């Protein structure tokens, strides 16, 4: 098992947002975490990578990571593309790439750069440019590339479609499909756009006010009209 | 929600309020009377040097109060209030030694000058805010002695030599033939007492709330229609005035002003007094004054450098352990005693 979450509780200050989540992410493939605004999707990702105070059991390939510092969790192979993307706006694309691979000591960083250029050719053109001057879609691509350069076991993606034009969203999801098929990295995807996410995902969980209400193979959820009507609203 | 929670919460809170509000008139009178006795007694009990020290402690307390008005209550960090202290001291000293004015006549002039300069400095301060204001006022504090020494104003300031002046004598109508030291003490507590009352009155009312709202939630305060810019510049003016009056008092109490008595250390001392006494506390300012006067005296016995080191250590210790200062500590002890009774 890549990621196993048991009895996850988390919140901000006095406010509890998550009330005991149980879920798993399998090796390879995409797991989608769906739900309305305020259901606790972003909070779940923050809890997993140690950005907020958390109770419960989170294990990454059998190793418990609950309560560890964010940087230690990253060093154990968990990459996170947070809401707001988490790129370094003041630094160049090149420097963002270098930072993505900051903790790696293997000799394959350069060849991974090439791989990123294959997936994100636009970033190669912007190589020396300051990240803050990129378009929204390019910044999202940079954020994903930066996260992948960690060579993570698990990649957390928080709403990669947020604030982007539909055409750009199509482009990004196309790239993500390639990444899913070519890289073998496990992805936990949080998305508002359930239709898009379910197309990409193998498995999905549906979150409502801090609890998981539906889980199952993505294809089944997509087909289930009652779930679509009551939770996904399309 | 359980039933016991519902009962427990209201049981503790209302109790504290009636005790404060409902103090009977005779108790208030007793407190005031007791306070007066405590304030007056030292003049007749203490020898002349300790009395002088106490006079200076009260004066420093007043200066700290001035700093507290702008930094504590209004959140504009000043590390240069020594400049206003110096300005007040020099205003009084120049008027007394060059023009033979009486001390009392110099006070309103000194207050007005300091208030005006404070108001003037309040404007650039508006644009700075936070750290930049601290940095600028710090630089002002460093530059003060150099400005005071400058040749172009030497005829008035006495340059490096400074100016000598004489304590006012006790007026003839006072009974019992007070010595100059005793009278100086009464002058200090009288003037300071009036300033403390005025500041207290200002802070507990609408203006005080506006000052603190501007400090804590500037945007919200502005959104509620407060003119934060005017509030801030006026806070600076009042603050400079109070610290300036303290400077005037210190000039006559010490009977001497000179540039090197107004180094960066004065500003830092006031800052230390404010933190140790209690940030945003009227009464805390008085504790601060007592602290900055008596602690260095004790420490100086160890080494010339000791007061500074002890200041520094205590300042950091207070910030870590008691960020609301001595006044906050007393408040908490009082609250606990009330809670128990």
């Amino acid at each position, binding site marked *: 098992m890549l990621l196993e979450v048991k009895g996850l509780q988390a919140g901000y200050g006095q406010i509890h947002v998550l009330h005991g989540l149980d879920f798993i992410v399998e090796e390879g493939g995409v797991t989608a975490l769906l739900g309305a605004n305020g259901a606790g999707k972003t909070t779940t990702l923050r809890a997993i*990578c140690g*950005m907020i105070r958390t109770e419960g059991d989170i294990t990454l390939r059998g190793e418990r990571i609950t309560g560890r510092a*964010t*940087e230690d969790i*990253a*060093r154990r192979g968990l*990459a*996170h593309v*947070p809401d707001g993307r*988490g790129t*370094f*706006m*003041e*630094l160049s694309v090149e*420097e963002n790439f*270098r*930072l*993505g691979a*900051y*903790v790696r000591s293997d000799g394959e960083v350069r060849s991974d750069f090439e791989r990123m250029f294959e997936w994100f050719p636009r970033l190669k053109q912007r190589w020396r440019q300051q990240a803050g001057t990129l378009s929204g879609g390019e910044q999202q691509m940079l954020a994903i590339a*930066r*996260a992948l350069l960690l060579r993570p076991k698990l990649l957390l993606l928080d709403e990669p479609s947020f604030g982007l034009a539909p055409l750009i969203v199509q482009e990004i999801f196309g790239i993500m499909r390639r990444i899913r098929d070519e890289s073998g990295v496990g992805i936990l995807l949080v998305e508002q756009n359930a239709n898009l996410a379910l197309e990409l995902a193998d498995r999905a969980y549906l979150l409502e006010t801090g609890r998981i209400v539906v889980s199952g193979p993505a294809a089944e959820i997509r087909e289930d009209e009652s779930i679509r009507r009551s939770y996904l609203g399309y | 929600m359980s039933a016991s929670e519902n009962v427990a919460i209201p049981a503790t809170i209302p109790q504290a309020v009636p005790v404060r509000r409902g103090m009977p008139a005779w108790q208030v009178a007793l407190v005031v009377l007791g306070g007066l006795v405590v304030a007056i007694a030292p003049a007749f009990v203490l020898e002349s040097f300790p009395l002088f020290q106490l006079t200076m402690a009260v004066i420093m307390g007043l200066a700290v109060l001035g700093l507290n008005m702008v*930094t504590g209550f209004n*959140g504009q*960090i000043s*590390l240069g209030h020594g400049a206003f202290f110096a300005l007040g001291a020099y205003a009084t000293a120049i008027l007394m030694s060059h023009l033979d004015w009486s001390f009392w006549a110099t006070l309103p002039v000194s207050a007005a000058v300091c208030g005006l300069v404070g108001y003037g400095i309040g404007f*650039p301060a508006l*644009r*700075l805010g936070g*750290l*930049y204001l*601290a*940095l*600028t006022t*710090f*630089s*002002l504090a*460093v*530059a003060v002695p*150099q*400005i005071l*020494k400058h040749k172009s104003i030497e005829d008035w300031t006495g340059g490096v030599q400074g100016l000598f002046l004489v304590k006012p004598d006790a007026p003839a109508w006072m009974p019992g033939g007070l010595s100059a030291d005793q009278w100086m003490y009464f002058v200090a507590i009288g003037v300071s007492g009036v300033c403390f009352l005025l500041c207290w009155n200002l802070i507990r009312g609408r203006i005080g709330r506006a000052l603190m709202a501007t400090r804590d939630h500037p945007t919200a305060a502005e959104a509620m229609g407060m003119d934060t810019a005017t509030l801030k510049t006026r806070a600076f003016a009042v603050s400079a005035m109070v610290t300036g009056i303290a400077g005037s008092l210190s000039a006559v109490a010490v009977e001497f002003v000179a540039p090197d008595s107004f180094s960066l250390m004065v500003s*830092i001392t006031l*800052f*230390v007094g404010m*933190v140790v006494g209690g940030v945003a506390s009227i009464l805390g300012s008085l504790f601060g004054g007592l602290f900055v006067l008596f602690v260095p005296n004790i420490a100086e016995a160890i080494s*010339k*450098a*000791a*007061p*500074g*080191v002890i*200041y*520094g*250590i205590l*300042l*950091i210790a207070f*910030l*870590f352990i008691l*960020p609301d200062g001595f006044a906050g500590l007393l408040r908490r002890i009082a609250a606990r005693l009330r809670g128990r009774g």
Partner: protein
Amino acid sequence: MDGFAHQIIAGIATGGIYASVALALVMIYQATHHVNFAQGEMATLSTFIAWSMVEAGIPYWLAFLGTVVVSFIIGVLVERLLMRPVQNAPVLTHVGVFIGLLLIVGNMTGWIFGYTTKVFPSPFASSGPLMGGLVSAHELGSTAVTLVVLILVFLFFRYTSLGLAMRAAAYNPRSARLVGIRVGWMLALGWGLAAAIGAVAGMMVAPVVFLDPTMMTGILLYAFAGALIGGIDNPLGAVIGGFAVGVLENLAGAYVVGTELKLTVALAIIIGVLVVRPSGLLGRVVTSRV
């Protein structure tokens, strides 16, 4: 005319010192958004440490190196022990801790080493004036040392991955954690570097102004002015600003206000820059969050 040229060159020499201290200030500001009011006192302490090593017979450059290392460690310790516990406290608390540090370090220095003024050696042989009397060996040497330090710092931040990580931690600590950077240590490292740079500045200025516990107080003011001219979050700007202030101060001192008001010149620059252009002449416009 020679007089004028000398004023400019002397200004560049002292400007190098201001540039170093300004750079130290900017480094801490960039990493933590604090202005270290105790920067001057820390540099003075470092210079006294160098002085005791030289007095003990250690060769100058060895003492120099030792001082830089010790200062670095002091800087790291200060961040870990004093700044870390209050990192989420309000600005007033930070300013208070810096003032406390200034008091402790400054007075400790006086306590340990005494308040008498000491002569500090210059490593550059004073074989008489150079370039036709325009510049002394020490002025030339200290400017060179300053430039070497500045270039090293630049190379470190630009080309090493540790330098890059420090910049990342300063710009965006949240994202820095996500790529595995230990942000807390980066801040401590920044403090260490700032203390080391300050130490170099102290050792370079001490032969000129003589060594005593208050040696750096005025210099800190010029460094403030330099850092502000350049924009307080712009390292290169701080360096240029430092040199500019050095020249300006010398010219103003020689031709306009006289030496008695030099500190006031610094004060005027500080107020002028902050009021007219708070982001500095070379800085970026900083927008603040509501």
